[in-house]
């Protein structure tokens, strides 16, 4: 389905990819939101050299185009805003046994590695989506919930992915919502299609990382899901693939490392129509590295 509508701009549509700033207060869902004729767009950018973040880049080394029009980068900073991490784990039947034990271990290590100011939530899915722990700073609750996971059933990956994006914490300047999705399989019981999920992801303004367990160890004849790669790209994050469940702990650590090394660029769009889809491209000038950012953002017609 084609993208046709979007959201009212909010003061902080952080969600990992973009922050649109404004000045007129409105009320939505009990949270203050702001509107303005002049919007500042913030873009959450990862610059990596292989699996290592590239530090020390300056404002002069970034170039941004908005719908093909070069924009002036106003600020750049290494992002130090606390994370609000939604961990979404596939606990379908194919994860039974050693894989689940490795996943629990990886999840617990990830939770223990969070900083005190970071928050996290836990969602699991098989055919049903289970909201295990709402966003919290309470590590013990998260660890206990992880410990009690068991694996059974089919895979409602699309629905879980979508609902996790909707359940992300209300955006504030004080935290950066990130969704980390783990799955070992292809969807087989969701209502939403992959195309619908992709469209929702483009509008979610949530930074999304996907960890996928592939290869012979999964017992699946499928190759890595092309959909998961597309979703990670649309969410401004990456797809990380594990050949064995034993690799999950290390991969989750790498995701966290990457999350801590992102740049926050801001610009005020000029010479582009305000409403509709904005195709954003970020490149480097005089520096080397793989740049990852959301492919754009959507502004709803007023």
């Amino acid at each position, binding site marked *: *389905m084609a993208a046709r509508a979007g959201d009212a701009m909010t003061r902080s549509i952080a969600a990992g990819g973009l922050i649109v700033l404004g000045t007129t207060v409105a009320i939505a869902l009990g949270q203050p939101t702001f509107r303005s004729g002049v919007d500042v767009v913030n873009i959450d950018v990862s610059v990596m050299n292989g699996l290592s973040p590239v530090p020390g880049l300056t404002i002069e080394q970034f170039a941004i185009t908005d719908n093909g029009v070069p924009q002036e980068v106003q600020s750049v900073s290494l992002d130090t805003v606390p994370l609000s991490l939604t961990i979404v784990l596939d606990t379908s039947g194919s994860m039974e046994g050693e894989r689940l034990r490795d996943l629990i271990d990886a999840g617990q290590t990830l939770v223990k590695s969070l900083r005190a100011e970071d928050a996290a939530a836990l969602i699991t899915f098989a055919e049903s989506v289970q909201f295990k722990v709402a966003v919290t700073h309470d590590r013990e609750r998260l660890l206990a919930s992880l410990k009690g996971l068991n694996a059974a059933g089919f895979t409602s990956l699309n629905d879980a992915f979508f609902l996790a994006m*909707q359940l992300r914490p209300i955006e504030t300047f004080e935290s950066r919502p990130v969704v980390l999705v783990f799955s070992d399989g292809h969807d087989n*019981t969701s209502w*939403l299609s992959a195309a619908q999920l992709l469209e929702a992801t483009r509008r979610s303004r949530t930074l999304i990382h996907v960890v996928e367990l592939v290869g012979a160890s999964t017992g699946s004849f499928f190759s890595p899901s092309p959909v998961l790669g597309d979703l990670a790209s649309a969410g401004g994050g990456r797809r990380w693939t594990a050949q064995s469940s034993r690799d999950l702990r290390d991969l989750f650590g790498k995701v966290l490392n990457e999350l801590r090394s992102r740049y926050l660029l801001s610009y005020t769009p000029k010479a582009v129509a305000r409403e509709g889809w904005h195709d954003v491209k970020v490149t480097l000038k005089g520096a080397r590295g793989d740049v990852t950012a959301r492919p754009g953002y959507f502004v*709803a017609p007023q």
Partner: protein
Amino acid sequence: MIMRVAAIAVAALLAQPDRSAVETYREAVAAYLASGNAAESVKPLVGWTNEEFEAAVQAVIRRADPKELEAAAALHLEIGIAVVGLSTGGAQAYFEHGSKLVDAVLPPAAIRRGVSAERLNEMTMVSATWHRVAASAFLSVNDGVRARLFANRATRIAPRSAAVLTVQGMIDEVEAGLSNPDDWDGVVQQISSSRERGRLLVRAEESFRAAMAADPGYPLAPIRMGRVEFLRGDFKRAQPYLERGSGLAREPRHQFLAAMFMGALQLEQNNLTAARRSFERALVIAPQSQNAVAALSFVELMSGRAGRAQQIARAFTSARLDEAWWAYKTGTLDLEGLQWLRQRVRK
């Protein structure tokens, strides 16, 4: 469903009472007849081998008590449905025994002359419904092969039944849905998958047409026919079928399916207002339906109402995973047939 399975699994660890197997089996059936509680009634039987079940089932068949046969068959159906999500092979074993029991209710051809037409029709309906529900249980876990096995038996018993014909069509429809070209990277595999999908949809259409001809008042056939047209991308043809099915639907699950399929169609036609109304109606019928929550939240997001999309998702709490939840989730488990059989047993 999962909790019921757990209860049965725990009971499996219990030691067998020192009584004859047939007696124990009959007591379990009697307990189910009295209480309707399958998970409790079955406890003395869990851990039995297939041979032990076979011996007890044959003994009950030899006794030829229609009430006991029907109750035992229903109990096997309950157990099979409870375990089908964990083991389709295990479920099949329970269903095979149940199939023998329910077939035994129907008198052999040689003595049917002495049976009233009304009783014969009644027993035919029981057996056909029983096999149809068993087929739908496999269909709900995407096991088309086993679903077909039991649907074919239902067809032999009641070849003109609209409900049975509809289950046959649903097997093809679900298998067509599973034959997704997008799951493949290779072009050859994509083409092959696409052709298979087309072939299955044609067969599904034939079954649904036959069902609509057999009983124009049966709502599920036009609802699923509308879904077939939707899957083909023929939205113009899908709409009147869904409207017809929706108009006929009296059972909540049928109304729910009609609303969900209609909403999906309206969404594809970019009629977001109508899609919202359809999914809201579905959510009223089944407030804890994950499908309806995801669908409605998605429509709100596409409508530019991200806050409302979040609100709907946040209001959703994961429901108890019983067979009703499962029936609404997959849309294929024949909940009405199962409830009808239960009510008969408890009469």
